[in-house]
């Protein structure tokens, strides 16, 4: 029988890895993701999980070890946080270009300086354009589910891409929440064993990653881009199967909350979605016509679904938990893509962004109420006077 437990995001991810029968794990300590590896180390020591647990000598090595293991035909898991994520940067493109479906759990942490344990999405966001599937979990249950869903999609031979499975540090990674652990038979039905079309096997020699001429480069880039284009159909299929087998009700790409007849909406991903839901519920009780749209996959970016979801509002506030210093929107990363998605929509909503939760600060209810005030003023004025509001540092709405 499926059983219900109270688990942190890290513990939930470890349970997912156990049920996915991960074969090679590579660890290196950095808070907060490291609780995942502590859980896995116990499982291996207790005999609950038959896997090679390799002590990496750094994040760059973590990714390198699992790349080799994935190429040899093993299902793999690694993970990191903050500057650990960026330390491994060299390896991300070779893994994606090598079409190795490595899974990396990222529990976000602010980048230095100065040293800050708090959650901020900038670590993972800095790595978003390398050809990895990518999305955030709102709670431990979603962290568990996303791990299985991403193995299924990434290992599908129509996709073959690595996956950053992200969760906010502490808010998700360390705060226990309700997690329904399924039966092993359900996981086995959903997730077939990992196979690679051309593993490193002396019985069938192949060369992985030879040098190419510049004129051969575009073709390979195009293939990696095509895999991203092919992924959405596979995501839809996987989410459909997941909902059927596990009795869940996920939308593949964007989830909507209280958007019926809403005039304005928050566009958000990750842990702060939970607070945003409460804010929306409260504002609705005050008569404010507001809703919420949650992004489940940042890569591949669901352009069509974002456009469809947002075009029915008059104003959209994008909640940014990452920085893009000097970028076109002067704030974070999401508004760039939201505005690009809406460009071809005839009736575009007004859009702006809110820098909130940077450095791992809480985003309390009152900050969402402030954002709603800004959105209401935009509707009243008929324009967005700014592309970014640094929440808590602005004189007025």
């Amino acid at each position, binding site marked *: 029988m499926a059983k219900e437990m109270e688990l942190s995001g890290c513990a939930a991810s470890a349970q997912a890895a156990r049920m996915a029968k991960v074969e090679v794990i590579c660890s290196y300590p950095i808070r907060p993701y490291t609780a995942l590896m502590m859980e896995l180390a116990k499982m291996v020591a207790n005999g609950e999980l038959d896997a090679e647990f390799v002590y990496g000598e750094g994040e760059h090595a973590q990714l390198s070890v699992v790349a*080799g293991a994935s190429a040899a035909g093993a299902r793999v898991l690694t993970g990191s946080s903050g500057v650990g994520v960026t330390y491994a940067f060299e390896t991300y493109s070779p893994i994606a270009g090598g079409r190795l479906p490595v899974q990396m759990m990222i529990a976000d942490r602010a980048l230095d300086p100065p040293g800050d344990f708090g959650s901020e999405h900038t670590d993972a966001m800095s790595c978003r354009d390398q050809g990895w599937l990518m999305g955030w979990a709102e709670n431990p249950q979603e962290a568990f589910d996303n791990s299985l869903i991403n193995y299924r999609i990434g290992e599908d031979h129509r996709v073959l891409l690595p996956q950053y499975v992200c969760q906010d540090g502490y808010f998700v990674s360390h705060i226990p929440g309700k997690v329904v652990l399924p039966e092993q038979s359900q996981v086995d039905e959903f997730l077939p064993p990992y196979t690679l079309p051309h593993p490193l096997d002396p019985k069938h020699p192949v060369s992985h990653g030879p040098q190419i001429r510049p004129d051969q480069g575009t073709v390979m880039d195009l293939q990696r881009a095509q895999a991203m284009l092919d992924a959405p159909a596979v995501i839809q299929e996987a989410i459909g199967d997941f909902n059927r087998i596990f009795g869940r009700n996920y939308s593949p790409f964007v989830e909507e909350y209280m958007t019926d007849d809403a005039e304005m909406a928050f566009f958000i991903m990750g842990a702060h979605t939970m607070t945003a839901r409460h804010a929306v519920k409260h504002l609705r009780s005050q008569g404010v016509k507001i809703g919420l749209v949650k992004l489940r996959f940042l890569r591949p970016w669901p352009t069509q679904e974002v456009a469809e979801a947002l075009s029915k509002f008059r104003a959209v506030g994008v909640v940014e938990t990452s920085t893009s210093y000097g970028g076109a929107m002067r704030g974070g990363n999401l508004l760039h893509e939201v505005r690009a998605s809406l460009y071809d929509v005839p009736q575009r909503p007004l859009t702006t962004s809110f820098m909130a939760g940077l450095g791992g600060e809480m985003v309390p209810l009152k900050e969402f109420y402030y954002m709603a005030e800004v959105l209401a003023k935009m509707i009243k004025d008929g324009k967005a006077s700014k592309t970014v509001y640094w929440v808590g540092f602005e004189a007025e709405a």
Partner: protein
Amino acid sequence: MAVAVKTQNLPLIKKIRNIPKEEYYVPGHRTCAGCGPALQYKLVAKAAGPNTVFLGPTGCMYVANASYLCTPYAVPWMHTQITNGGAVASGVEAAYQVLIRKGKREGELPNVICMAGDGGSVDIGLQAMSAMMYRGHDALFICYDNEAYANTGIQTSPTTPYGSNTTFTPPGPVIPEGKKLFPKDPPQLVIGGHPAVKYVATASVAFPVDLMNKVRKALNVQGPAFLHIHAPCPKGWKFNESKTIEIAKLAIQTGMWNLYEWENGEYKYQHKPKEYKPVREYLKLQGRFAHLSEAHIAKQQAFVDAKLKAPGIPVAIPISPPRAEA
């Protein structure tokens, strides 16, 4: 049901005519004429045989070998970054351990060999190499040492000898000797701090049977092993490409290179000259040392003399003093 992981036991080769005919590093590459690293690759692949996976960090043996659609490897091969050969090799070995244990792969554990240049071994690749040695993976790390970053245009590496003219150490009026530093000692780095390591040896393309047997011994031990192979580079060292073997032999005859094995804490020496020739004999054949003055050559000679007496590299026969400078 867990399946026990078996490793193969490759027999040692007695004479050069007993060397297997089969090639696993085949024609089709683009290395320079007289390339020492290419020759050692051919010998290593022959010695290892078909049940082998090579990991190739960026370096000459990647750039000049592994061209798309015509790579020379008849066994599985995978490129790694110059930074992470040891880590990727660790991952391949770990995968095979678990896959064989779970019955997902049949047969013996393949020979997992990381074939790295000097930069990929003891400079930018040092961390990954050291960690593979520390963790005890059943894999072989080979440093093919051509004593420079060669494919990028001959820049100094940590194993480039003192006094070398490289594109990062050009001699000039202010720095007349070119390279001022003395090289790292890769096998001593490995021996000195990695208790899991079972076997370390140095080899040279000048002694192919010795080289191949060291490859086989390294593969036969269960656990990590390290080989440091001297592989002269005609382009980088500026000598005629017909003299690769002559230069490699002279390195041993002058004490610039030593052939030894380290196994279970014991050193054994091979092809040790009865009397060492002066290093000048080795230096004078190579354009990279053409600018050196007598004082520089004496400094190099003193370094070699000290190294031959150094602890950890015991010399069983007395070293004859180098001949007086001319």
